[in-house]
């Protein structure tokens, strides 16, 4: 078995795969360049957001009859994970109302570009927090309380309000969307899973940006703000941190920014930018999809009691077990898998590098695993949305005449078929991504193939665990 040094083999990536520039449509380009585009969508979402908060605070405590629970954790979640993330990447971040108040205060306006600098204390975000570790921790913290958050309207309302408040507080101290980029627990996984999405924002010609002295997309212009996500579009190679706010489209005097349609998963093969915090996010998300499937969809009442904080000792045990699996267990096993892959491939790549790179192969299976989990409860509980639409607070209203629509699981006969199909697609795609990532680290295809085998075993074991939970 030969020993090879690490190679970054861009020619084997599909980085240059076919794209269709959507912004060639004059109508779409004009829409995205309009200053009203993002605020208008955010204000619409803000209406639903306020309704959810109000329903959570003053509506019925019965979650399945409360707008806050049904529309946030069933309707919004399903749209996010099934439609928005896989197809439109960070589109949710475009329309999310949570950072709105902080951003509007900082800008002293909602739609128009207010002259002058952003109004904040101008602190610099700590260098050691310029990653998604905070988002990983925040997501895990939420996950530990998921049985409470997902079922108690008042807790959901306070959580939403807390996120808005945190966004406002951070906007007082720091310029731009520090909350979205470094803190939001949802934004972390949206960013990672957006690497699979079919939409990307890119510059048309990087040389134009390099030669452009004023960098209007970063600094801003009298008509637009500098990138609120603190990204330079000129060297944007992947979508993890572009919030699709379209400010750069408005700013660029060279008309060099494009919104493209692209193949699924294109960014997963971009070697530049892979990091340990993102790799951990991939592992945490995969672990959480499995754990949620067991805790929330499984038949074991004792775990639900623990998760529901029936006793403090039970919840402590649950939290310890949850963290042990998500933070230590699964990542630890995957570290051994990376070690086995290195041995099988016969390469001298540092194990940490291989661990990080190969973790991106978990993204497709993680995403389809989350969609499969979502299918397991959305179709079953979807009819609650119909009645809640007419009676969002559970006060007996009948706004659209649908309040009496009874709860009825729909299409349960296709749920398991859908779950199996999703998991198989995710498995196959993940194996292909693992191979292509391994190929970036090896000199030959045979080495890459051998290196893929341990990862494939891991992916297969995860798939079979999902199947056991859903069908076994």
């Amino acid at each position, binding site marked *: 078995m030969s020993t090879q040094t690490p190679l970054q083999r861009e020619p084997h990536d599909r980085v240059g795969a076919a794209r269709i520039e959507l912004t060639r449509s004059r109508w779409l380009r004009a829409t995205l360049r309009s200053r009203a585009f993002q605020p208008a969508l955010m204000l619409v979402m803000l209406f639903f957001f306020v309704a959810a908060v109000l329903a959570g605070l003053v509506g019925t405590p*019965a979650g399945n009859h409360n707008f806050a629970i049904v529309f946030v954790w069933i309707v919004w979640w399903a749209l996010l994970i099934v439609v928005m993330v896989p197809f439109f990447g960070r589109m949710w971040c475009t329309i999310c109302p949570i950072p709105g108040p902080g951003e509007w205060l900082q800008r002293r306006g909602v739609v128009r570009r207010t002259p002058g600098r952003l109004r904040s204390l101008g602190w610099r975000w700590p260098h050691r927090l310029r990653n998604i570790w905070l988002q990983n921790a925040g997501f895990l913290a939420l996950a530990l309380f998921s049985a409470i958050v997902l*079922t108690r309207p008042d807790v959901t309302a306070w959580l939403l309000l807390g996120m808005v408040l945190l966004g406002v507080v951070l906007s007082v101290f720091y310029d731009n969307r520090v909350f979205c980029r470094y803190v939001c627990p949802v934004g972390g996984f949206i960013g990672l899973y957006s690497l699979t999405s079919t939409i990307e924002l890119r510059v048309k010609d990087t040389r134009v940006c390099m030669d452009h002295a004023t960098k209007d997309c970063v600094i801003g212009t009298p008509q637009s703000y500098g990138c609120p996500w603190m990204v330079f579009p000129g060297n944007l190679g992947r979508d993890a941190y572009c919030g699709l706010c379209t400010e750069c489209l408005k700013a660029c005097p060279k008309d060099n920014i494009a919104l493209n349609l692209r193949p699924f998963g294109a960014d997963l093969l971009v070697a530049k930018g892979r990091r340990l915090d993102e790799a951990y996010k991939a592992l945490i998300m995969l672990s959480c999809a499995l754990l949620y499937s067991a805790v929330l969809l499984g038949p074991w009442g004792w775990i639900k*009691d623990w998760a529901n904080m029936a006793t403090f000792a039970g919840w402590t045990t649950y939290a310890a077990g949850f963290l042990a699996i998500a933070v230590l267990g699964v990542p630890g096993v995957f570290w051994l898998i990376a070690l086995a892959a290195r041995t099988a491939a016969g390469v001298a790549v540092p194990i940490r590098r291989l661990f990080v790179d190969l973790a991106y192969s978990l993204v497709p299976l993680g995403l389809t695993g989350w969609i499969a989990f979502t299918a397991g409860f959305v179709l079953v509980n979807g009819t609650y949305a119909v009645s809640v639409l007419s009676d969002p607070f559970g006060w007996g209203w009948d706004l659209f005449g649908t309040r009496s629509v009874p709860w009825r699981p729909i299409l349960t006969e296709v749920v398991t078929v859908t779950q199996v199909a999703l998991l198989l697609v995710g498995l196959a795609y993940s194996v292909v991504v693992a191979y292509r990532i391994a190929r970036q680290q090896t000199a030959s295809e045979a080495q890459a193939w051998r290196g893929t085998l341990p990862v494939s075993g891991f992916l297969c074991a995860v798939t079979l665990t999902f199947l056991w939970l859903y069908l076994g």
Partner: protein
Amino acid sequence: MTRARLWLLLPFGALALVVLLVPLPFAPAPVTRELTVVARQFAFEPPVLRVNRGDRVRLTLEASDVVHGLHVDEYGVDARVEPGIARRVEFVADRAGKFRYRCSVSCGPLHPFMTGELVVSPNLPFVRAVGLTLVVLAATLVSLRRLPPGGAPGTT
């Protein structure tokens, strides 16, 4: 995908069809099963019911705390039970696989996640799904493996 790879994947397609369609022998004589399920916030005891296909299931449903319901996916069974008053439902387990039964009466915060499982053997959907997973994995790995010069047999 190249023509050579398509040829290479053809046997796996055939194997997948076999996994999906082949009838697996299993024929225990149907019996009548008397089972009791106790519903409480937010679980059923026992959490998993195991029967064989064709069995007649006589289910006694009890509630130990508040009013609960029982809805068995794909079986059309629906019942409501109050504490202290047992309820009986009866059905023939004529479909194999795993089916969730759920509380159908709002009973508290975790009500939407109050589920149990009815496993009707032989659990062919699970067996076929596992077989299909192995076929898909093998097909993917084989398709990634570099083909020998000249491509797969029959494609030159």
